[in-house]
């Protein structure tokens, strides 16, 4: 990918409103809820520093190798004014209304409902509530290109 054209980026960033771009975490990296008193506290119960095979797997994600991390960092670097949210597929309380609201403006109510139901597909890249790609199929630069196109449309 060539140098970033900041002038063109201003056109894609639009209002900069929350959740223009949503990356849905891959299923294998999902964070479980669990509830009180056994919820998502993997990082909360391990106060020791230093290596440990289980701890490294459980508490310390390798962000460099993760497709969400790579896509997120590329988007932040190349489209810094575009709001990007990383969301769990299980966070339906936020995901569904947010996608529905945004997609309805863009594609109408029926298509927005379809889009909202599909938004919980792990690895989805959503722009204005519409699914434009899958993190499993795109590398970070391709995600940026797809998002740039969709946001400018």
């Amino acid at each position, binding site marked *: 990918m060539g140098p970033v054209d900041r002038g063109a980026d201003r056109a894609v960033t639009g209002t900069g409103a929350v959740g223009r771009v949503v990356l849905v975490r891959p299923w294998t990296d999902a964070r479980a809820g669990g509830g009180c008193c056994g919820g998502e506290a993997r990082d909360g119960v391990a106060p020791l520093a230093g290596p440990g095979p289980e701890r490294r797997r459980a508490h310390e994600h390798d962000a460099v190798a993760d497709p969400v991390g790579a896509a997120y*960092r590329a988007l932040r670097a190349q489209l810094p004014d575009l709001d990007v949210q990383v969301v769990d597929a299980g966070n339906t309380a936020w995901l569904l209304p947010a996608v529905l609201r945004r997609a309805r403006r863009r594609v109408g109510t029926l298509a927005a409902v379809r889009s909202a139901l599909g938004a*919980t597909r792990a690895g989805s890249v959503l722009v204005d509530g519409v699914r434009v790609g899958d993190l499993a199929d795109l590398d970070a630069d391709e995600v940026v290109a797809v998002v740039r196109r969709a946001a400018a449309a």
Partner: protein
Amino acid sequence: MPAIVVAAAVAVLFFLAYRHYSSYLARRVYGADAAFVTPAHQYADGIDFVPTNKHVVFGHHFTSVAGAAPIVGPAIAAFWGWGPALAWIVVGTIFAAGVHDMGALAVSVRHRARNIGSIAHDVISKRARTLFLLIIFFLLTLVNAVFAVVIGNLLVANPGAVIPIFVEIPLAIGIGQYIYRSRSAALVPSLVGVVVLYLLIWVGQQVPIELTGLADALGVDNPRNVWVVILFVYAFIASRLPVWVLLQPRDYINSHQLFIALGVIAAGILVGWNTIAAPLVNDVPEGSPSIFPFLFITVACGAISGFHSLVASGTTAKQIDKEADVRHVGYLGAVGEGALAVGALLAVTAGVAATRADWQALYPDFSTASGGAVGNFVNGVGIFANNLGVPLDLAVIFAAVVVISFAATTMDTGVRLQRYVVQEIAEVLGWQRLARNLTLAGIVAVVVPLAMALLPGGGEAGYTFGVLWQLFGTTNQLTAGLALAVVGVWVVQRGRNPVAVLVPLAFLLVMTSWALVVNLRNFIDDGQWVLAPLDAIIFVLAMWLVVEAALALRRASGSTSGDERAPVPDDSPQRR
């Protein structure tokens, strides 16, 4: 009084508290600064550290803290009458839980999103980290023990729930695999899972499964204990699976069930217009535990839960976009859990019985109240669902399935977390074999709570379950105490008024210590030679915490005396 009136009044109080008190905390106590660069921004990697919209983080945080525990405590505490239980839930949520959850999040955000145990090492003393690990070890041990007993009791009392609960396991695995392999959206398959689960309730009702025969064949007095062993074997295996294989899809199904159950409770109360049958203040039999201090350790989750500090400071803090968001995520998360506790209280005071006499038959003494608490909640929610037209017998199994699903997920994650804690403690002690061996650590994580859950006298009489629940509440409050101590020291060091933090801290430490002393004397009198040493150990931890907190606060006060304030003791990103 109609339950709906109480629910509406509480909603107003919680709204006002969020609007005004949390705002005061953010501005005057924690000093939330819009210009502060949060760790989510400084270390943004798109995985752990992600600046995230506050509503998104709230969704994540709330599903990680709202579960089965805020149901059990209020269901037992109704024994003292609905007035004291409701008062503690409301006051505790507003002035203790909100302060605690928001404070743990705020202090973590100012310390690179590190967890409370790690920050305690720096802010309080080096010993505090060991204290933290020991308290968490006992907390998780007791969590796993009490939830195994809760599930065992419910499976014995509701044999129709056995098939749905056990079929839910392969169902969740199948849904997880389908979503993973086909890369399909998760919502529709998980909703199908919920529908299948509820269809299985009918199957379960037709084919109830009881283990009385097996228990007799094994020479076990109480079939509940057979379930307890099965549950721990299951939890050990489940905790060794990757999170996404079973835990995540089941939790996804549970998240739908949470909304369904909350909707059923709210709509059932509204439609049925159930009135509260329990007395405002119950005239308890002589020799019963007194309101002070036992109410305040019986209702931990739902009034204040130290476990929330582990979630807040471990994972949630890494996603906070703006420092001011700690108010929305932390305080509102506590309020959400308080609302769940109020719903549970209404189910056991307005749902489960129509008359005062019926209610008093369910709560004649503390042991019966403890042993039957969850069953009362299940029956109460069953009545609410019945108000909506669901046949009562199916409605009760539905409620049992919801509670068992939550409790089982809590056990899954509880055993998994305990394994981490065992490894951490082993590392502190230099026991590298235990620290590195997952199977060994997992066995330790399972065997200790299993032994406690099988203590004689549990379940049936409710005695052992009642005291195990109290000890769980105590360790949960001690965890909250440690987090509040860390937050309090941090607030003092920043030269801000710590009263809002120190009052709940002092209250919790007094109540927990008082309860531990009374229980210790009772255990010795009753010859409870397992519970007595356990109580004594937790009491030592409580005293250790009191000393550490006092010393740290004294040091912090000294360091901020005079006109010159010490620098803010955070190691967070540079301010803009």
